[in-house]
């Protein structure tokens, strides 16, 4: 009933976990059966190990949070050697979010992930707002976005999803550019650039001054952008941004997302993904829907 497809990827249901909010999945095994998920997108992985930004990296804001983790990760080599063997047999789609500071770094990381047989897809992160070099820089210019995607396309042979930033004037322009460059799917939105000030101490809350805003406060923007992109490109769209409930996920599906990712909500309720899957089933039963694809893109 809930099965859906993203290019060559079959998802048992449209609910995936967003990169950077679900670790490598292992952090959640005490709480949920990971094999029930449509997919897990593990944390942003770069060519080398990264320490990320200094503390403080997080500030709560009304109905949301700012983060500036800055791609702290073990690097692609340790991921492949140490993490991958531990997670490869989880019975769901394990995707790797690939980040970098240069086209070369994106390509070599993607190439190394290509050789991991249990990773059927990558999500190319050209939208991280928290790194000084690269990241969002590639995702805010259509030519740069197309260039990095077409270079990665040459070395990566499985499903290539490109994660888009909302911090642009016209998101459809970027989406079309990466579609033209060979992306198999796009996911959006990454976090919105934001800032919060601690007035008692007269300084920004984050060590990096600005950071990425996520949570329910960004959802209406995300829904709007997914709707725009779903109508502008032919490739499947994955929607994310502030999904907390099955109803939130349904909004994204109805405006054209073939799958969704749950992010910040995992921090509040580690079982939220399962609740959303069960909520989607209940919705389909209530509305006499035999196949979730019947409602995808109805708006």
């Amino acid at each position: 009933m809930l099965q859906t497809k993203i290019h060559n990827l079959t998802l048992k249901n449209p609910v995936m976990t967003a990169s950077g909010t679900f670790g490598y999945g292992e952090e959640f095994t005490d709480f949920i059966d990971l094999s029930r998920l449509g997919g897990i997108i593990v944390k942003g992985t770069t060519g080398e190990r990264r320490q990320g930004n200094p503390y403080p990296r997080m500030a709560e804001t009304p109905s949301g949070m700012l983060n500036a983790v800055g791609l702290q990760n073990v690097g692609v080599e340790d991921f492949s050697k140490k993490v991958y063997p531990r997670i490869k047999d989880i019975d769901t789609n394990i995707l790797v979010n690939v980040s970098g500071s240069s086209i070369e770094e994106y390509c070599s990381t993607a190439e190394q992930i290509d050789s991991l047989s249990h990773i059927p897809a990558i999500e190319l992160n050209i939208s991280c707002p928290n790194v000084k070099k690269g990241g969002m820089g590639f995702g805010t210019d259509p030519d740069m976005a197309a260039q990095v995607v077409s270079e990665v396309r040459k070395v990566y042979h499985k499903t290539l999803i490109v994660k888009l930033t909302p911090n642009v004037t016209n998101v459809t322009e970027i989406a079309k550019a990466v579609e033209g460059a060979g992306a198999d799917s796009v996911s959006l939105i990454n976090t919105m650039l934001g800032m919060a000030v601690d007035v008692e101490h007269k300084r920004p809350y984050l060590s990096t001054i600005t950071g990425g805003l996520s949570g329910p406060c960004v959802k209406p923007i995300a829904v709007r952008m997914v709707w725009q992109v779903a109508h502008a490109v032919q490739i499947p769209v994955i929607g994310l941004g502030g999904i907390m409930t099955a109803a939130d996920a349904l909004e994204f599906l109805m405006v054209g997302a073939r799958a969704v990712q749950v992010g910040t909500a995992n921090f509040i309720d580690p079982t939220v993904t399962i609740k959303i899957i069960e909520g989607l089933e209940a919705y389909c039963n209530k509305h006499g829907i035999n196949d979730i694809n019947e409602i995808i893109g109805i708006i």
Partner: protein
Amino acid sequence: MKEITEFSIIERIQYGEHYFSLLLKHPGTLQHIEPGQFVEVAVRGSRDVMLRRPISIHDVDEEANTLSLLIQIVGNGTRQLATLKAGDTLNLIYPLGRGFSGAGQHPLLVGGGAGIAPLLHLAKHYTAKGIRPTILLGGRNEKLIPARDMFKPYGDVLISTDDGSLGERGLVTQHPRFNGEYDQICTCGPTPMMKAVARSAKMRGINCEVSLENTMACGIGACLCCVTETNDGHKCVCKDGPVFDIRGMEKWMNG
């Protein structure tokens, strides 16, 4: 194993203006909890608070399946939690993090402000092993050292206040008994206090554990928001801590 459980509040005690404690009962069997571990508390009914709040575990009664939290009212989240009363329920993720080792035959426990909370469970842990710890509690004034009487059965309780309103006047590190003969120092409280305690312990060659209170989101090592500097790079306070042995914390200590 970590779990999410709806606890019932069986008692709420207010300590002055800034602190309160909640005694919480598990609906079934409470899991084993190490001293120094913490819970992530769901905050309900606030427009501005979405994330859970990490709160250290103050006391545990495994036979009664209860635990208690000592909470300082500092912001929107804890202000909302302060409105809870007996009969309400509270959703917790627990037990989280790595606690104190419980090492040493002559331990000194040093707490400041809300940092005294986990030291009660720790003091009881030592007492159960037949070890009587020295417990040094500090605060700006008398009112800011809550629940101090609870410590008395579990160690020699000493007090320092900045204004001298209770115990010795001055910082905990200036207390005459701070420089006594100990083989283990455990501390939790404001960062400057913990750093001063840790530096002194290091100078005197005494093992020392610090319990950090960085701002957290997930509490389970997924978001990487609460990291601290360590000799091995950034570590999550929620998962690799909150208790750290200072031998791995040179950068933090000197930072």
